[in-house]
């Protein structure tokens, strides 16, 4: 049975990418609700009524202390139980850029009830120590995120200062890969191994996106919602006329998986 899923897009002070994220979800066929954190905290059952939770990009609380730290911390305290129940009940969670940083801080990539001390990964300052606003290529990897079309290489912009995946120990990369949690990697335009700036932040294993073991929670640093229209591609004026951007496929996959 398929039905139109509801996507709940969470915003708070410093959420910046809510407009285009809502647009992408709607273009992909979701019913979308944009909700402030205070409103969701007051009525947590609205989460239970949704099939998808999206934490968009931005600078939650200014990214003071560290990117996503304060919002991740706040979510754990205010909605930790509800989010864990949502994920355990089959809900999908997508965190984009700052949203990914929040998911990592929240521990949700490790699993719905992971303790902060269990976390194996951090998103930390880019190796250039600069904010990097540029287009890169991603490859959808063999992972638990089966709703991503495997092997596709697609262009997408990044815009972040703290997107470098750092892992606790040397074995973690293999462990995450084996567990099917490495969902997206930075690659060159023809799918080769990416050095700087194709991999814009120096991530371990060129990781751009990680999912939880179930594949229903995905976080990624790049911004698929910024490649959905014919005019988003950085050199669309050189290309044949386009109907849409390559980033829309990710939202379609998500919406169809959650239907």
């Amino acid at each position, binding site marked *: 049975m398929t039905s139109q899923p509801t996507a709940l897009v969470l915003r708070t*002070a*410093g*959420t*910046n*990418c809510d*407009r*285009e994220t809502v*647009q992408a979800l709607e273009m992909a066929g979701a019913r979308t609700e944009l909700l*402030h954190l*205070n*409103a969701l905290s007051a009525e947590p059952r609205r989460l239970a009524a949704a099939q998808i939770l999206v934490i968009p*990009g*931005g*600078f939650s*609380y*200014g*990214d*003071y*202390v*560290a990117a996503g*730290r*304060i919002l991740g*911390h*706040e979510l754990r*305290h205010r909605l930790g139980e509800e989010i864990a129940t949502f994920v355990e009940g089959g809900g999908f969670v997508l965190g984009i850029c700052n949203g990914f940083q929040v998911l990592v801080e929240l521990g949700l990539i490790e699993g719905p009830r992971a303790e*902060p*001390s269990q*976390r*194996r*990964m*951090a998103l*930390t*300052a*880019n*190796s*250039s*120590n*600069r*904010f*990097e*606003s*540029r*287009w890169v290529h991603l490859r959808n990897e063999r992972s638990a995120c089966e709703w991503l079309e495997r092997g596709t290489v697609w262009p997408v912009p990044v*815009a972040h200062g703290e997107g470098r995946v*750092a*892992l*606790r120990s040397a074995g973690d990369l293999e462990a995450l890969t084996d567990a099917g949690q490495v969902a997206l990697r930075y690659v060159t335009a023809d799918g080769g191994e990416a050095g700087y700036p194709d991999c814009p932040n120096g991530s371990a294993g060129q990781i751009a996106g990680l999912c939880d073991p179930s594949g229903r929670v995905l976080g990624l640093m790049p*911004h698929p*919602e*910024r490649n*959905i*229209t*014919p*005019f*988003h591609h*950085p*050199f669309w*004026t*050189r290309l044949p*006329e386009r109907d849409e951007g390559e980033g829309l496929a990710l939202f379609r996959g998500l919406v169809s998986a959650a239907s």
Partner: protein
Amino acid sequence: MSHPAPAALPDAWRVEVFRSQDRPDPDGEQTLAAALELGLELGLEPIEGLRLGRGYLLPPELSQAAVETIARELLADPVVDTPRITAPGGHPEVPAGVHRVLVAPQPGVMDPVATAVGRALVRDGHLAEYSTGTVATFRAWELTGAVDRAGLETLGRRLLANETIDTLRFDSEDLPYVQPGGSGHRGSVEVPLRALDDDALLALSREGQLSLDLAEMQTVRDHYAALGREPSALELETIAQTWSEHCKHKTLCGLIDFEGERIDNLLRSTIGAATRTIDAPWCLSVFEDNAGIVEFEGDQAVCIKVETHNHPSAIDPFGGAGTGIGGVIRDVLGAGLGAEPIANIDAFFVGPLDLPADEVPKGTMHPRRILRGVVDGVRQYGNCMGIPTVTGGLWHHKGYTANPLVYAGTVGLMPSSMAHKQVAAGDAIVAVGGRTGRDGIHGATFSSIELSEHSETESSHAVQIGDPITEKGVLDTLLRARDAGLYRGITDCGAGGFSSAVGEMGEHCGADVELDRVPLKYPGLSSHEVWISEAQERMVLSVPPEKLEACLAVFAAEDVEAVVIGHFTDTGKLVVRDGDEVVGELDMQFLHKGNPRTVRQAAWVAPDVADPGVPTSTDPQAELLALLAHPNLCSREWIVRQYDHEVQGRSAIKPMVGPAGDGPGDAAVIQPLAESTRGLALAVGANPLQGRLDPWAMAAAGIDEALRNVVSVGADPERAVLLDNFSWGNCNEPDRLGSLVLAARACHDVALAFRAPFVSGKDSLNNEYRVGDRTLSIPPTLLITAMAPVPDLRRAVTMDLKRAGNRLYLVGETAADLGGSHWFDVLGLDGGRVPRPDLERAPAQMRALHGAIAAGRVRACHDLSEGGLAVAAAEMAFAGRCGARVALGSVPLAADLPGAADGDAVALFSESCTRFLVEVEPDHAAGFEQALAGFPCASVGEVTDDGRLELLGRDGATLVDLDVEQLRQAHTGGFRG
């Protein structure tokens, strides 16, 4: 000599978060590189290692267990960080052989990180409440190496801290941990004025930092003499703020004697007159609000404002640029009933980046430090606000070394029906956003006087650190309140603080303010400090009583502070109360219209520089490569990539174009409305080399350039609007004012010719720097911003060459316009004729080119600006990873070339106005030529597939034959931050 007493250690828990030893510390590494560079320059003993610890001071009443939890869960990352915790009053355990430089914001300086941590501690139940000072932050730099104390202090002052706003400690742990404050007097303070003579009036103006001249002080004195009482300090401050150059534009709006003519209001009689004559029906609000508002599409309008923030940026580049962008965003939030900011613009003019350290004037930072700071400030604030920074510019000249120019602009989107605001007696005055502190006292008057080597100490309270996250909260909630129709008037709290915001809103009715209702960051402010503080991130609303409750609820729902601080009245008076006491009562008429108008003398004196004529280009290849690497032309990619230029998903033509994203685009294009393919192009134009030679031509060429840039990407010049931002020297000097008059007249003439109205502007005068008895003026600088719609985004074009076999056309006529050209700058030549647009031909020619682009006949287009044809062809070639061959013999040259002129040099490097290099597919060549019929337009070459740029002289000889990769490298090889 006695030894200093041991320093008092702060009575606070201290948490320092370092990257773990086995993890990279990018902040440490980057700062180490800068320290080594500086050390080399100054001959310091080398340092070997540098690590950064992010420090936090937490209240001593927290338990050790609580602090450990806070450190583990909130302040440090469990994977990459190691926290170091020190008990209150304790000395941190510092590794052996390490020097420590501690940098903390001075008490009272905005510390958004501390506030965010404090609020999180309250949320988690660790603290009952948070007020400024309860949590403090600092940076702990740990250095190793042979560096001595003097070297440490040099590095600390030049690299790690800005003592205007920071406290610095060298190997000493006595960090400040206090609540800022003071013992300011709440209540009225009388200032005896009526008995003062001229000398005493001037002394009062100077000592009170009022920045009022003698005539103004006399007017105030006489006003109070007639009232039969003395003014209060608050009244005097209110008058000083309202009459400041910054708020009143006394010079541009005053009386000027120029060449036997009395000019009454230069701004109105030139720029304003052009706009009135053009009288475009799609201009909804011009020169009357915080920003110019014009129709965009359907019922939607766009607004635009560009501001200067020069003096604060000279003293604190990071904070100055950040609050500059924050301020202009609030201008747009406060335009009409408020607009949604959809794009930012930034432009900087700074000194040479290779300036030797010993040529940096006393009290001034090195241009490199200034540039890094302003870029950081715009990045941090703009990115955090979620507004794409899409276009701008960067120019260098020695004249900006001590007085850099920082321009920030914002574009907003709003329903056309919300272009106008009202204020009604009985409405509540609601202050929204940040709390009020002692920061930013006298910003308006400070920006109106010249800088000096003492500015950083005298005016430190005029400098501020912005808090974008507070402003983002204001933005989000304000637009919701706007759409629900919950207020009827709005303005930003900028220069002059509440005194200007409430004073302006209530100008035509009256206002009654209760200062004791204003939320403060910390206690201890005097009444007039509350009133004139320019604390950031505040807006003021006029809210009808019946909507007040609903309005306040919108803000409360998202934790944005909104407080009623009074109400508007119909008395024509500005009444300010503090508790039961009236601390000021001013007549609105006197406040806004009572200032005397001074007559200033202006005269234009052309510089005594001989015209060097047209020299021969002896080595065109080397000259071209030098031009591509010229500081005013070289790649800005290192800046552009630090700005998020795509947030909001509206950016259609990005600042960098071409398959590798390294071509310098002429203009950015955004798509304001998702449901429409109508685009909006934005670009700037300026040339600081021209103004000294010919200010009229400089202004005219700047307008031509800004318009060329937007036309190049496909915008419609018939719907273009302009903004003027004059940054000039001390206009009490007749020569400075004379050049300003000429530049303003050019704005009139050229705007009229193009029928492109000016819709907004802002001037910054007194950009001079005093050392001893010498005063240095900046080069007269006019930044022109152009905004124009692209009728159909699908027809937008970029400047990168697309395909071998396509033709190249040169549109526009080339003359021997080498005055102020970058080729002359490379050759070390001065003088010569500055380019001027042909006002008969240029507008029609731009319309014709736009017609060809709109008809889909153009594959690439780049205007000819700095460096002329040679540079434009080179940029188009490497941006598109294509080769190009251009025959200079086909270039349409003006008939009046001097007889002995080197025609090749003119064709290669002249910066004549209104010219474009255009790529056209062979199938469209006939149509293109037809569209440009009647204008200078010639097929000058073609796109090739051999990856080389070939420029052939008029006699057919090869003047330039270079690999485009070499051109690209020349363009990108310079300073990268």
